[in-house]
């Protein structure tokens, strides 16, 4: 009996114990999703797309604060970043970008999405439009930094034949990449939803905004390329012929006007009782913000939060033992006009004596509201707390002022011949060489989150990073109109942007000059990642960063000129007066100062206009030509 059982069970084992060989290797994996499964499910495809959105490339962004301090817009108040104001030349490989890994992922997505019949037509079209938007955005970023790059629109696959030469593609012309971006936007704007409430995914609005920006970049490179004849390659990989400028400007104006006349977006005007607050809120207010066209969004308690507020919070209201890093320069602050549309440095002296101000903020009064909206000034508030931003006490000593100051935030000291145990320097600085203090006398306000907890490492902030907004579209339209000899149209768009900032005296058509256009972008779009690329496309970069040291009087002259030299960061420091018995006792005076850490004058070489392609990429593909002047 037992023997039979053994035989039968042995037989059963032989018959059923093994799978067919063909099935053995077909077990579905339990830890990854297969291509097949993903392309059947709308929500899974959306996750794939979310990853592609997450890889969108920015050069300056709020999650990478130190990049904002490269170009003399701001000083890096952290000891490990001082080198940014101490090295003369920008390395040629800075900002270089050659991300064909991401490009392949985008191309794969587009290929597979076009074949995904399991998805409904509408859904598929939108996904396709979004992926093509992201691909164009990446090509736009490539061409901004590298010039023409190989234009690959299909995923390439190696056939293991031992000969990869069929995968090597030469660089396209710079104009061809811009043409590609512009043409893609024409196609996809009809595939994407036209809904201004969708701000973190691609819409018709952002397609038009990107088209306008790209066409404007191409146009200005074509027009202003004559200023840098050495920045050019024979094959057109770098440089665009001047006769194309007109066409690009027209395209830029048309795209911008299509968005403007669509009427779906408008400038943020919800807090008009205080125009400075209103401008600051345009960046942090995410509820029904009509100005933001496309942003990188963040969400509290989701794992995707950002630390811009921790990085830059003033010490006086800091929620952690850090902050104060991005210190806007005087060079930037003085660019903000007076309300009568004139440029002037801040009034520090009357003849040989100082000008005495009752309140620390008085020196900044009567200016463009964007000054206080972009920069935290002495005398202003953050999170309801007054900033404590002054460099020391000037006391009267034998017929002249002497200065006493401290080495740490809000230090207590003694005034010689005066009271002891008094505060001798502001809690927020400025203290020269003290990291996290406002070493230029200013702190950044744009994108700073006034919500409680935004300065805590455990909470952080969900303020978004605005990549495209309506005011920039207006300025793009203004620039294109100006270049097309329609100064009245340009003035109209400029005045819309300026009126929101409290500059209610309109500019006339004859006021609009190239300097005005450049200046308006500088003040409206500070800390939004435009400065470097604007100066590159206008071929102003080698003049603005010419490697020559600046004196204090250089810094406060030529304000509002497009090619104003901006190689070294200066600050504006407030001092309290201690002079009992004098009418000036307790008032504030200001000094233009340069931090001892600012030792180099930045120089943008002709070879910086287009970043270098890494040696291993050149070596792998002999068809690539190098960028010029390196």
């Amino acid at each position: 009996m037992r023997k039979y059982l053994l035989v039968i069970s042995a037989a059963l084992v032989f018959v059923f114990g093994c799978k067919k060989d063909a099935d053995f290797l077909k077990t579905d994996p339990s830890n990854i999703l297969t291509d097949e499964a993903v392309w059947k499910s709308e929500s899974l495809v959306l996750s794939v797309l979310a990853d592609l959105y997450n890889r969108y490339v920015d050069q300056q962004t709020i999650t990478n604060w130190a990049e904002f301090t490269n170009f003399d817009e701001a000083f890096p108040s952290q000891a490990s970043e001082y080198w940014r104001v101490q090295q003369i030349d920008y390395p040629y490989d800075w900002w270089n970008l050659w991300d064909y890994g991401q490009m392949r992922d985008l191309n794969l997505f587009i290929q597979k999405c076009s074949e995904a019949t399991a998805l409904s037509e509408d859904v598929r079209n939108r996904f396709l439009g979004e992926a093509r938007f992201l691909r164009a955005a990446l090509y736009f970023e490539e061409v901004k930094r590298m010039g023409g790059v190989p234009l690959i629109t299909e995923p390439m696959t190696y056939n293991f034949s031992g000969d990869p030469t069929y995968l090597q593609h030469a660089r396209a012309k710079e104009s061809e990449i811009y043409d590609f971006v512009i043409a893609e936007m024409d196609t996809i704007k009809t595939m994407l939803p036209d809904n201004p409430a969708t701000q973190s995914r691609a819409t018709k609005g952002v397609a038009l905004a990107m088209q306008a920006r790209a066409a404007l970049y191409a146009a200005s490179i074509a027009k202003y390329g004559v200023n840098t004849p050495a920045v050019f390659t024979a094959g057109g990989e770098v440089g665009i012929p001047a006769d194309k400028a007109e066409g690009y400007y027209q395209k830029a104006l048309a795209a911008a006007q299509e968005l403007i006349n669509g009427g779906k977006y408008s400038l943020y005007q919800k807090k008009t009782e205080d125009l400075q607050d209103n401008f600051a809120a345009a960046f942090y207010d995410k509820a029904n913000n009509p100005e933001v066209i496309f942003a990188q969004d963040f969400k509290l308690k989701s794992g995707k939060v950002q630390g811009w507020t921790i990085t830059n919070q003033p010490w006086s209201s800091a929620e952690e033992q850090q902050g104060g890093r991005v210190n806007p320069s005087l060079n930037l602050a003085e660019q903000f006009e007076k309300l009568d549309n004139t440029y002037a440095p801040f009034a520090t002296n009357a003849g040989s004596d100082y000008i005495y101000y009752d309140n620390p903020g008085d020196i900044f009064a009567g200016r463009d509201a964007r000054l206080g909206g972009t920069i935290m000034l002495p005398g202003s508030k953050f999170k309801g707390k007054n900033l404590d931003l002054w460099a020391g006490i000037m006391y009267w000593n034998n017929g002249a002022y002497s200065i006493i100051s401290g080495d740490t935030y809000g230090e207590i000291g003694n005034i010689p011949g005066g009271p002891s145990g008094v505060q001798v320097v502001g809690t927020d600085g400025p203290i020269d060489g003290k990291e996290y203090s406002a070493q230029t006398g200013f702190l950044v306000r744009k994108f700073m989150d006034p919500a409680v907890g935004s300065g805590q490492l455990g909470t952080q902030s969900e303020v978004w990073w605005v990549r495209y907004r309506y005011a920039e579209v207006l300025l793009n339209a203004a620039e294109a109109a100006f270049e097309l000899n329609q100064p009245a149209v340009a003035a109209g768009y400029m005045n819309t942007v300026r009126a929101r900032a409290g500059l209610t005296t309109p500019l006339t058509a004859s006021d609009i000059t190239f300097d005005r256009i450049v200046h308006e972008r500088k003040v409206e779009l500070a800390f939004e990642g435009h400065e470097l690329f604007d100066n590159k496309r206008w071929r102003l970069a080698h003049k603005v960063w010419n490697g020559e040291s600046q004196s204090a009087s250089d810094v406060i002259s030529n304000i509002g000129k497009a090619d104003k030299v901006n190689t070294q960061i200066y600050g504006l420091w407030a001092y309290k007066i201690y002079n009992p018995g004098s009418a000036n006792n307790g008032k504030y005076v200001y000094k233009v100062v340069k931090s001892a850490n600012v030792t180099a004058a930045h120089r943008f070489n002709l070879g910086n206009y287009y970043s270098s392609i890494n040696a291993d990429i050149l070596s792998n593909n002999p068809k690539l030509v190098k960028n010029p002047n390196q």
Partner: protein
Amino acid sequence: MFRRKYITGLLIAMTAFACKKDNYDEPKTTFQGSITYQGEPINVASLAVNFELWEPGWGKSGAIAVQVLEDGSFSSLLFNGNYKLIIPAGQGPFRSIINNATNSDTIPLTISGSTTMNIEVMPYYMIRNQQITKSGNTAAATFKLEQIITDANARSIENVYFYLNQTAIVDQSNYKVRTALSGSSITDLNNVSMSVDIPSSMSSVGTTGDQNYAFARIGVKIAGVEDLLYSEVVKINL
């Protein structure tokens, strides 16, 4: 106790003998010389000019960049072998000369044992007969600007600068004071004179404060050429 001593000794011995010496010798061959015009070195700014050495035959190709010093000299430690020397377009205040062997601006180079070689180029201008003197609180310079390239590639002079610095490195990014003379206001290239006031206190961050000497130099900005042409650095006693 005893055992621990052995173990320690063993560990030290292992550390000392476990690794072999790296099996490549470091490059030992010196390649040096100057960038010259008719044997005379061409002075440039610090960290402004470099040229490339390519050594074909390896799997990946990549250039060895050789930096040209302020006085126009260079030196590089290399392995023996065959190289190609290229001065990239746009480097320096000069143009490359067509090489007879390659019929292009590429210079073939065989390195076997230390080599001294000057690289001849065609500068746009040369600064000749430079004399820098000090009188009172002023430094004065007289010199001649000789135009070397006079054919279709000739370039005009945009600006001439006269720099003073406290260190021996003097150029457009390293100076205490300077004066400028625009090219259009030069009437006689054979006889140019400039002067600069010596500031009462020559001291700044990174230098030693008051010192009784300074360094002077002439720089020439040529229209459409990025790198400036410089004269030799002259030490003057204050």
